[in-house]
């Protein structure tokens, strides 16, 4: 089992980094192999924020192969070179950890697919997120450990989704951790609780259409599936509704874009979700205790029914 949580403030910003940390930490008993945050921060919307990794966390519990840190530096150099070749100018650079970087980039993007393919052609390099508001931060450990490691508790924004993972379908590593970026769409992210049973059929079909998979985690399929639907012209909600029949298995998942947050629940309602909805805030999680971490007062919550899809705007 895994735990998912999300919240969206409507009409205002809040300290979503700290709020999501509290929600995910309340769900840590559902899995603490890794924790991931997709945070939609307040930005001027001018530049892209690219979160990417040049290696894996090889700490305790990791299923990744140990590499020399010098390899990370080599990979970073090639990333810098490719960015320069594509006309992308790095405005600000942060290296939180040897393997994890955050760039603010000035880039007149026409096609993020081509951009991403170029960067990810470097072995060991993966873009975790690309967007003008979205930042995906994921690493091994529970919510508090990851939050402290990346200083996320001060991030102010409108909405966020996150995931506390118990590894079942794939290894304990960052590449299999949620959230998944809705590659190659700017500012789209996905978290999922459940198991998908037609993963390989869908993956083969989507790869034939030019979509990319970075892990063997079944949850990544949701991000790619919806991204493909959006490429074909569907809205976010249409793509999510299509997934109810296109994806087989049990699932509850969240999708976020730069100005919206949505949830979908499979037709058997096999995975839990509790929802709180008011005029200025929507909060949801695998268990009510996640919502209680941001709303300790007595509130009205409910479980969405089977096959339900909902989308909220900021």
């Amino acid at each position, binding site marked *: 089992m895994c735990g998912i949580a999300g919240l969206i403030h409507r009409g205002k910003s809040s300290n979503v980094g700290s709020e999501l940390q509290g929600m995910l930490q309340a769900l840590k008993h559902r899995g603490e192999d890794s924790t991931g945050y997709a945070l939609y921060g307040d930005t001027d919307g001018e530049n892209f924020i690219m979160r990417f990794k040049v290696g894996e966390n090889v700490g305790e519990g990791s299923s990744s192969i140990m590499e020399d840190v010098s390899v990370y530096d080599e990979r970073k150099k090639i990333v810098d070179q490719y960015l320069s070749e594509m006309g992308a100018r790095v405005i600000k650079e942060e290296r939180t950890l040897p393997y994890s970087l955050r760039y603010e980039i000035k880039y007149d993007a026409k096609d993020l697919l081509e951009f991403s393919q170029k960067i990810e052609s470097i072995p060991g390099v993966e873009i975790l997120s690309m967007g003008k508001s979205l930042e995906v931060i994921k690493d091994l450990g529970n919510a508090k450990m990851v939050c402290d490691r990346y200083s996320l508790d001060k991030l102010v924004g409108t909405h966020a989704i996150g995931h506390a993972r118990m590894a079942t379908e794939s290894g304990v590593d960052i590449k299999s951790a949620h959230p998944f970026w809705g590659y190659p769409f700017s500012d789209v992210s996905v978290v999922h609780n459940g198991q998908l049973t037609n993963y390989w059929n869908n993956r083969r079909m989507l790869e034939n259409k030019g979509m990319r998979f970075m892990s063997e985690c079944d949850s990544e399929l949701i991000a790619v599936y919806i991204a493909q639907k959006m490429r074909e012209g569907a809205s976010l909600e249409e793509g999510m509704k299509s997934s109810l029949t296109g994806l087989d298995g049990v699932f509850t998942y969240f999708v976020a874009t730069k100005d919206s947050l949505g949830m979908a629940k499979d*037709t*058997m*309602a*096999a995975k*839990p979700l*509790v929802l709180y909805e008011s005029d200025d805030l929507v909060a949801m999680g695998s*268990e*009510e*205790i996640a*919502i*209680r971490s941001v709303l*300790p007062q*007595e509130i*009205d*919550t*409910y*479980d969405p*029914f*089977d*096959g339900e899809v909902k989308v909220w705007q900021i």
Partner: protein
Amino acid sequence: MANLKTSEKKSKAQSMGMHTEVLTGRTQQKFFNPDEAENFYYFGTYDVDFNKRTDLDVKEMSAPEANKEIDNLMSQGYGTIVIKNPQGKHSLGVGILNKLNLIFEGSLGYFGMGSCDGPTVRINGRVGWSCAENLMAGKVVIEKNAGSCFGAAIRGGDLICKGSVGARTGIDMKGGTIIIGGDAGAFTGFMMQRGRIIILGDVGINLGDSMYDGTIFIGGSIGSYGSDAVDAELTKSDQDWLTRKLKVAEIGENFDVSKMKKIVAGKKLWNYDNLEPTEKKGAI
């Protein structure tokens, strides 16, 4: 009563080394002996006074700590306990085998009031998955909504939710009554074996899927029927029972029970009506 202790017949299972234990437990030997009055009570239950009332704030307690304190209060004779700040914690109020008037001022998480036998409970909030699982007797009333697997495998008692419930309500239930004031999700009454479910609102897909026995009453629309679930005639005695039950449950006032649909199992299983071992003992 049957003397299980003297049973030494070598079975195939024993010859395979699977089980050689001789049954000597209290429930096997004594619990159902009607000649011994004290054995009608569970070990560790208390004589409580419903007029003796206290509050318990569980905000800073873990679920085991809170449950232990409830037990402690019962041991002091408190028959009415008000739980403050449950805050969605899991497994609160589990395993109460006592007569008790228990009130929760707030919502519970998963497995609230699980494996209980006897208490009367009012929850002024919402409950998470598997509320009152394995309830044997008593009454549990939820004022707001409930999650999935509501009343899973209950054997007796009344379980009432005034709001809506998630999927698989009454899954595997073997007795008792579940009453829902609002709507219910998919697979309601999945594999139910006995008892009754009353839904005043709409219900999702696969209603009564694989049900063995029992009865489901639906006031609203039905998403779809599960395999083995079929319509049955709503009799006058059904209507009388529904009216009485809703009144006692303080739910659905003025609800027109004559328009409800009655759903039962459309199959008959071999040996299904054989008594359970415990029922056999009661009959001896």
